[in-house]
């Protein structure tokens, strides 16, 4: 059985104008699945539908035996705990320390009183330290998140997502605000952490080369539909043309 199975997903922000038109996908096992496609085609919408930051209009999202599209309240929150998310603009809580940001990955498992007093499980704290070390920020635990550089922030963002012990990692353009070198480093961190923890990754990405380099599978979206689903090697210029339209840009 696959980890995540999306069936006939439709999303309309404006009734009658679907952004996602009948998307069906299965994400299985581990490894990175990259989603590419032109701006405005609904990549973010798709990813956000999965953890229900956006409510889908129709369709099913089967994850760990549940249809996420039908959940709400406590069951939805419990499902969200199992899905980590990495954001383009990191979305750290800027006035909290790095450690608090990483530990906030455990919030789904805590009651408000314990959370308020920062009474995290000792095991969680040790795990957070280990993760921070793993992403190369061992000395930053007590720094405030707004003191970090973009690349450092994204490492914290990844640590926070992995802290959730997720069964699936979503990433919405995690490298779009970073320079090329840092982008590669971030992709490496994400790939390695996901592999070590056995987490499949679904990632939106604009840099096709990065996607090809790190992903085992590439999904090309255009106009709210999946137009390519296959290996990175299969992405030739015809297919890129199909995904992004036109061809002038390919020449450069």
């Amino acid at each position: 059985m696959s980890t995540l199975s999306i069936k006939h997903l439709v999303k309309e922000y404006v009734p009658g104008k679907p952004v996602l038109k009948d998307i069906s996908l299965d994400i299985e096992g581990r490894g990175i699945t990259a989603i590419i496609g032109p701006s405005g085609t609904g990549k973010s919408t798709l990813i956000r539908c999965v953890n229900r930051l956006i409510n889908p209009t129709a369709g099913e999202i089967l994850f760990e035996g549940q249809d996420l599209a039908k959940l709400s309240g406590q069951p939805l929150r419990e499902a969200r705990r199992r899905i980590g998310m990495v954001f383009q603009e990191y979305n750290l809580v800027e006035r909290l320390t790095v450690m608090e940001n990483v530990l906030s990955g455990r919030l789904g498992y805590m009651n408000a009183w314990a959370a308020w007093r920062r009474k995290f499980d000792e095991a969680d704290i040790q795990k957070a330290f280990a993760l921070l070390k793993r992403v190369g920020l061992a000395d930053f635990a007590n720094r405030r998140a707004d003191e970090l550089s973009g690349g450092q922030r994204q490492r914290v963002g990844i640590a926070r997502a992995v802290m959730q012990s997720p069964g699936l990692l979503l990433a919405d353009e995690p490298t779009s605000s970073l320079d090329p070198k840092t982008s590669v480093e971030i992709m490496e961190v994400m790939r390695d952490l996901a592999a070590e923890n056995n987490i499949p990754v679904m990632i939106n990405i604009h840099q096709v080369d990065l996607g090809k380099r790190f992903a085992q599978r590439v999904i090309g979206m255009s106009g709210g539909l999946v137009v390519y689903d296959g290996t990175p090697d299969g992405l030739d210029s015809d297919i890129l043309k199909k995904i992004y339209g036109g061809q002038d840009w390919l020449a450069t």
Partner: protein
Amino acid sequence: MNVASLADKSIVTRADFFAPSLGKRLAYVAVFVYLVYAAATLGLSLDRIEKGVGYGVRFLAGFFPPNFTETDIIPGLLESLQIAFLSSLIGTALAIPIAVLAARNLMPVWVSWLARLLIIFCRSFHPVIVAIIAVKAVGFGALAGIIALTFASIGFVGKLLSEAIEEISKKQIEAVRATGASFMNVIAYGVVPQVMNRFIGFVAYETDSNLRNSTMVGVVGAGGIGGTLFSAFQRFDYNFVAGIILCIIGLVMIGEVLQIYVKRVFR
């Protein structure tokens, strides 16, 4: 202003050039005319000013030496302090949930409208007016003062805090929500850190303002030093008036220094 911008302007036609500034000038003239008119309605005359200043000088002379020895100055000040503390605490405690309810980015429209209406209501009336009503409701004394200043605190902290909450970054909240955190945990980790600093500022200002107002509500019988001050005034006991006023100023200054310290601790 550099030469290029001047040159640019000279190309603009006369009509363009005058249209906006003419309206502006008319507005200034209108404001000026209004002010002259309003000043006239105040009944300002040289004779009156002369007399008034004369009285004023006599007043100031009457202030010296300030009298701090009267026995009812300390109890009055302490009661003002009590009113200020309790109204700040109760007012803030009530203002927090009301502000959360009033924040349009956290709540459905109808909830936020109800909460905002409550805040507007609390803000509209000066504490002294609320104090008058409260005195009618619960009788003379500190309780009326506490009620009056609690109203004011709800209005002030509620308004500013709800605005602060509305200005926070949605992205940070979204990230906390995505971890599966409950509503209260989203508040604790997504909202509170973003508004904490400003909130402390609001509460500090509110306490300061309650301290100052607690010396005033006594004028209408709602407890505190204000009553003592008012009766000293009516007895023409200006030395005592001066003593009380200096004590109030001292108290507010101490409050201001404490505020700086508290803000530093929580920064």
